[in-house]
């Protein structure tokens, strides 16, 4: 708007202002106050709008209701998931008893005398997650500190997307890598019969949890006010002292949330775990035996769901497993949510708070530091050299740690920064190894035939054409389902309401949906879409399941994009007499397009790589013809890779080829998102 139109009408316009506060939509509180203040400016078109007022109102209220209905979809979805799981799990709880189900030590649903005790499965999940955290927490925090505090801007610009790229690699590709490379390496290193162990699962899940931990911790560290750092530097503290005593304690809630979110990711992971954990439903003996195979809750669902007859006790027992799994992940995610909310409240003012968490933060840092100091170098050396050298290095670090009071601040800074930098290097090295392995082995398989032909001889020969197309169909459908609903929900949350019980409920619904393990979506899709709605194992059922799964991502990224738009833009439009919907559709949404695009692309990446949700809803292993309708099943890349890697001996070449194509698809999608984000300087985290 040019200054001219402002100057033409300086007179306060009472009518106009009254109309604004009188719109059927409850104005955002800050917003309405500001727009009242801005009421001095109005437009020459104002009389025209007054004439349209009534139909306008009708449309406004219709819009509001429309967006509201999209906003409650995620709440309905999570409720439906919970209800359907519980209904299907109820028979087993009734037959076995909740306590015996959870505390029973034998899981043998297919035996002559079936036993339904899931304690070994719970133990497997907890042990694997714990192991993953031991490995991922120090590396993740170290890398986050490196990115936020040490990396020069040019390095950060490359390293941050690279680490985030780890999040984009599909879990089945991780599993494939783990199966071929990691388990093999463990088998040789520890001289054991099979490398498929608790340790393998933990290492792999640790790698998968890293990007979450790094991303969220990095944000938390960067959110620490600069004035804290300056205050510390101004009394002559070194950079490391400042990081350790001021920055990390102030960021501790965010870092803790990062860890919990990473844990959630590890607990909910299915495909990668199935491929490397060995899957024996036993509690390791002794319990610290990291070289024992384990089986997780998710793994059990992934392995057995396809075998259990619908309606059998086994079938109900699997839904019981899903209920327990969902309960654990929801609890974990609620913790993270609460912590993050507390931080937000603190940042938003309330100066009185803060002392307690910070004090606790310092204590936690004291706890984290030794773990960090111990694990990073030992991990590094265990990879680089043999175990004896690693033990020696460990002793040196331990010695340093005990003597650290006597080491000068400058030397401890050198050592600490060395460790921090090496943790970032380790993470980048892991990424490099995975990419190198898959690219170098996969390239020879690529050819035009491979990309277009259907598979032959159980996938050992021929190509993956139908799987590529099937995956594209699945993604396309999922986006068609999730995009309108997600954008609508975000518009409702951000533009039409004030924060209150309704928005909190909707956000909680989306968050819970976000924290729901993908295998649970798969079970739900099977019970609700395939059976209850009678869609059968079909493209449509897969599309809807995937759509529900990516819905929270789209809501969140869209909301972030909307929030990033300054209120002055809204005021500018409203002050001209535009209605809310006119403002949204002509001013707000166009400026939010890059953010929405980023979110959509991220979701595409996620949908393309997921296996668990389509496992029982949409896919078949082999199919020569493309589906002619959405009611037929399809082939899909991740599932194809999963079967090739686990069930088809001698398909090495096509395994790597499939992995590479899937990786290129997903990584390409992620890179596009990162480029868009960097281009528009938005801060979206995922």
């Amino acid at each position, binding site marked *: 708007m040019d200054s001219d139109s402002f100057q033409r009408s300086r007179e306060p316009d009472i009518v106009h202002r009254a109309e604004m506060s009188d719109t059927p939509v409850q104005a955002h509180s800050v917003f309405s106050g500001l727009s009242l203040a801005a009421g001095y400016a109005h437009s020459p078109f104002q009389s025209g709008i007054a004439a349209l007022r009534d139909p306008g109102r009708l449309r406004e209220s219709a819009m509001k209701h429309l967006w509201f209905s999209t906003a409650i979809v995620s709440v309905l979805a999570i409720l439906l998931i919970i209800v359907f799981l519980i209904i299907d799990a109820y028979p087993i709880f009734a037959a076995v008893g909740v306590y015996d189900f959870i505390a029973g030590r034998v899981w043998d649903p297919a035996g002559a005398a079936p036993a339904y005790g899931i304690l070994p499965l719970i133990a497997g999940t907890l042990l694997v997650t714990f192991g993953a955290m031991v490995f991922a927490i120090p590396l993740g925090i170290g890398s986050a500190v490196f990115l936020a505090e040490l990396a020069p*801007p040019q390095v950060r610009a490359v390293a941050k997307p690279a680490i985030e790229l780890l999040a984009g690699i599909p879990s089945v590709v991780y599993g494939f890598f783990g199966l071929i490379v990691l388990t093999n390496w463990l088998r040789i290193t520890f001289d054991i019969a099979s490398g498929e162990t608790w340790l393998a699962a933990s290492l792999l899940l640790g790698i998968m949890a890293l990007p979450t931990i790094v991303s969220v911790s990095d944000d938390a560290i960067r959110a620490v*006010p600069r*004035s*804290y*750092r*300056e*205050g*510390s*530097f*101004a*009394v*002559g*503290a*070194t950079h490391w*002292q400042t990081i350790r*005593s*001021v920055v990390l*304690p*102030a960021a501790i809630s965010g870092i803790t949330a990062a860890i919990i979110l990473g844990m959630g990711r590890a607990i909910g992971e299915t495909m990668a775990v199935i491929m490397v954990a060995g899957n024996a439903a036993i509690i390791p003996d002794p319990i610290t035996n990291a070289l024992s195979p384990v089986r997780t809750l998710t793994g059990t669902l992934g392995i057995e769901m396809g075998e259990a007859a619908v309606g059998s006790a086994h079938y109900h027992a699997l839904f019981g497993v899903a209920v327990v799994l969902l309960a654990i992940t929801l609890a974990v995610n609620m913790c993270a949510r609460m912590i993050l909310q507390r931080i937000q409240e603190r940042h938003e003012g309330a*100066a*009185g*708070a*803060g*002392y307690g968490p*910070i*004090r606790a933060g*310092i204590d936690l840092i004291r706890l984290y530091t030794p773990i960090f100091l111990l694990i990073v170098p030992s991990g590094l050396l265990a990879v680089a050299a043999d175990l004896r050298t690693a033990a020696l290095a460990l002793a040196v670090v331990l010695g340093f740690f005990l003597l650290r*009071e006597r080491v000068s*601040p*400058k030397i401890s800074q050198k050592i600490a920064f060395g460790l921090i930098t090496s943790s970032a290097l380790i993470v980048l090295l892991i990424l490099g190894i995975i990419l190198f392995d898959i690219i170098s082995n996969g390239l020879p398989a690529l050819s035009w035939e491979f990309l277009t032909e259907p598979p032959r001889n159980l996938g050992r020969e021929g190509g993956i054409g139908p799987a590529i197309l099937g995956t594209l169909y699945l993604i396309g459908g999922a986006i068609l389902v999730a995009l309108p609903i997600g954008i609508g929900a975000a518009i409702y949350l951000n533009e039409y309401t004030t924060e209150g019980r309704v928005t909190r409920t909707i956000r909680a619904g989306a968050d819970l949906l976000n924290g729901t393990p993908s295998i649970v979506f798969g079970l739900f899709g099977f019970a609700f879409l395939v059976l209850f709605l009678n869609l059968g194992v079909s493209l449509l059922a897969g599309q809807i399941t995937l759509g529900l799964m990516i819905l929270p991502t789209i809501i969140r990224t869209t909301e972030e994009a909307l929030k990033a738009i300054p209120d002055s833009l809204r005021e500018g439009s409203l002050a001209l007499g535009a209605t809310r919907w006119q403002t949204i559709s002509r001013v707000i949404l166009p400026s939010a397009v890059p953010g929405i695009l980023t979110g959509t692309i991220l979701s595409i990446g996620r949908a393309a790589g997921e296996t668990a949700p389509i496992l029982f809803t949409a896919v078949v292993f082999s199919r020569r013809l493309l589906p002619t309708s959405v009611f037929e099943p399809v082939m899909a890349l991740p599932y194809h890779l999963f079967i090739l890697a686990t069930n088809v001996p001698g398909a090495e070449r096509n395994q790597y080829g499939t992995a590479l194509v899937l990786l290129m698809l997903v990584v390409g999608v992620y890179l596009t998102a990162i480029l868009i984000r960097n281009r528009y300087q938005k801060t979206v985290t995922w």
Partner: protein
Amino acid sequence: MENNAILKTENLNLYYGGNHALVDITVGIRKNRVTALIGPSGCGKSTLLRCFNRLNDLIENVQVDGTILFNGRPITGNDMDVVDLRKRIGMVFQKPNPFPTSIYENVAYGPRVHGIRDQQRLNAIVERSLKDAALWGEVKDRLHASAMSLSGGQQQRLCIARTLAVEPEIILMDEPCSALDPIATARIENLIHALKKKYTVVIVTHNMQQAARVSDCTGFMYLGRLIEFGETGLIFESPRAELTNNYITGRFG
């Protein structure tokens, strides 16, 4: 007067990328005096102050030319130990920035990072610093309460105490009263008077009466240049430069 200068700049120039923020600054800060820097906002006062303890190092794309001498030794070089420099030249910021820990922890932070671990000594330092900052009476019964529970003026005195705890030679203050009410401001001004005995103080202020009240020397800056520098009385009564005169009489713009 430049002979007993503890801090001296010669032809100091500073660039934020392409923005020439300090132009040929040559000034001498005298020991155990209060020196005020005044001038319209954006003229480079904070920038100059942050040159003295090298806090501008934290900002990307900053280029500094010229010399700064602290006790006769240059401090701009790469080989300078900035940590030691900042220990000897403390700083109090415009907005009080206590750490979100206890009052005690805030004051003990500096001595701790400099290697003092003996509890008795720390207690003594905390007490002395809080007394010197005229805050002891108000907080002695709740040293372990959160620093965030203090009022703005108390927080600022806490930040001063935090600075005093490491016994710097110079204290830089960047508009230390701009976020405070008149009563809290008066207290800090009294404190500055008292600090002069032990410390050298350089204070940036927006408020000309404050400069006149607390300082011995005053420098007037405008658009990155030091227009005039001298005894506070002289600057305010008979400024030599037209610009200075316009500024202190409020005829500006």
